[in-house]
């Protein structure tokens, strides 16, 4: 249309937009972050004092430190994605003049930063407190070093975010997401991420397959998830959003939900394989 002047230049207010979005994420995540940090910190100290021997204290605190960081990662991811999907406030964000992929990308980044900050703080504070009470726990000298802990918690965060996106957009139920995530968390806990296998150099055929899949899936997830790739890849709106707002339009709502499930499943698997790739790669580096 000749008479229509298009002068909405790309991003004169983008800095302000990002700042406001980050402010919102910070306000949403901070109460959860604080609560888990307090529980984690005092919980670890209490658990340590329950153990009888110094070696037992070390072992139990180290295991629980991992568990708490995993819980922190998973909770931040669930709060960041599934709860907002459940409350349908993601719809509010999608109605703003902003690419939905940017919303998803920013949420991932904000949650990842909160996860790393929480893990780092726990990992540094707990040994300090432990040494003040007469026994040593230094993650940098332990079999599970600080860097591995940080990478691990980040992986849990991304996997939990993928699950939250997939199931949150399917059922829009926070309880469902938590219920579905719990077995996964137990599996992670019981296997210690299978890190010991990698550390022992036990790279079998299955691991190589995982590595290959991880390379492919990682590349796909980067192309699809990274916010600065505009106009390509997976439609984050379908993954994140309450697609149909007409509550009474049952058939449309159900159809939209199934579309979201498909997108969510893709994200879930790409994130999962990417996470496995990073895990294997990091563990092999560490082993070497």
């Amino acid at each position, binding site marked *: *249309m000749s008479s229509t002047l298009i002068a*909405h230049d790309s991003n004169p207010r983008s800095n302000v937009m990002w700042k406001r979005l980050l402010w919102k994420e910070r306000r949403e995540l901070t109460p959860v972050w604080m609560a888990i940090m307090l529980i984690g910190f005092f919980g670890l100290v209490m658990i340590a004092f329950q153990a009888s021997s110094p070696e037992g204290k070390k072992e139990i605190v180290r295991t629980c430190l991992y568990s708490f960081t995993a819980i922190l990662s998973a909770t931040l991811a669930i709060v960041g994605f599934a709860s907002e999907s459940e409350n349908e406030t993601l719809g509010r964000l*999608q109605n703003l003049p902003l690419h939905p992929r940017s919303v998803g990308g920013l949420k991932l980044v904000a949650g990842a930063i909160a996860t790393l900050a929480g893990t780092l703080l726990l990992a540094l504070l707990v040994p300090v407190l432990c040494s003040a009470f007469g026994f040593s726990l230094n993650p940098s000298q332990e079999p599970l070093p600080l860097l591995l802990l940080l990478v691990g918690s980040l992986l849990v965060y991304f996997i939990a975010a993928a699950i939250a996106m997939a199931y949150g957009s399917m059922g829009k139920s926070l309880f469902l997401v938590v219920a579905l995530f719990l077995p996964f968390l137990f599996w992670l806990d019981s296997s210690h991420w299978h890190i010991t296998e990698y550390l022992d150099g036990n790279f079998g055929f299955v691991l190589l397959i995982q590595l290959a899949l991880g390379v492919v899936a990682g590349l796909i997830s980067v192309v699809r998830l990274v916010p600065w790739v505009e106009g390509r890849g997976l439609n984050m709106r379908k993954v994140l959003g309450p697609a149909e707002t007409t509550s009474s339009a049952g*058939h449309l709502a159900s159809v939209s939900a199934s579309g979201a499930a498909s997108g969510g499943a893709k994200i879930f698997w790409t994130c999962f394989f990417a996470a496995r790739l990073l895990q294997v790669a990091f563990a092999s580096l560490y082993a070497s």
Partner: protein
Amino acid sequence: MSQEINNNTDPVVSITNLSKRYGNQTALDDISFTIPAGVVFALLGENGAGKSTSLKILLGLEKADSGSATVLGLDSKKRGIDIRSAVGYVPEAPALYGWMTVGEIGWFTAGFYGDGFQNEFERLTAEYELPLGQKIGKLSKGGRAKVSLALASAHKPPLLVMDEPTSGLDTLVRRKFLESMVDVSASGRTVLLSSHQIPEVERVADIVAIVNQGKLLVCDTLDNLKQTMEQWVVTLKDESSELPSTKSTIVLREGRGSRRQRLLVSDTTPECLWQLRDDPVVEEVLVHTPSLEEIFVGLMKSGKTLPASKRVSVDSPEVSS
């Protein structure tokens, strides 16, 4: 950020042969209409008729399978972000962050629009008697609807899109909401309103489009619709008599088998009426101007699509702004 500027003679919204399917369900089936500037345009239909889908396609939130849609001259397939930047949108169930205060959500949203947003938002909230320090979670449903309207209007959009805006609101709030729509339209801006609350739409709409199961049944000015449609209440002399056929387009016939039958007719002529009145089996024919609700019910029950002449054109002289 500069705004899109649309020439007044161009349609604000133009939809051409738009179709959308979700799996086996047809949400929109070859829909076409245009909306001129400065009117209140009502998109009517039952739940699941395709109203929300149409609005989402217009805002670039959904992609159509075929056909095209432009808003303020922008292709909704490619320029969704620009469209959402230029128009105001009030969703059906405004999902607002309950933990934010009224002032905070205004400040948050202002980051996505021009510089005047914050001041205008504060002016509107004062007008709606919403305290800026009040948590949104503590507001009534009506209060939240007002916040949503203020957020959608604060950048003074040339087009305000509202999806079932009065759903769940009490009478007084609804009335105020509707008045605000008239005010918006009076200021030269366009309102696109989706609703199934027919009586309230009748009070404010200039142009009405009725959709049913994804099909556009009619699109015309409210005045035209009422002029071209009549409700005939025919009393027969005998219950066993058959109602004589007329040359009018009968949209709906109710009360078959009884003495009194109601017809909703379209494109009729005085001759048709005289002919019916003169018929020996007819005792009396009363003619009423149908309400929008009666027209709506008639079209929905009959499922008839009125001729293309009932699709308003942007330069139609009947369109009042």
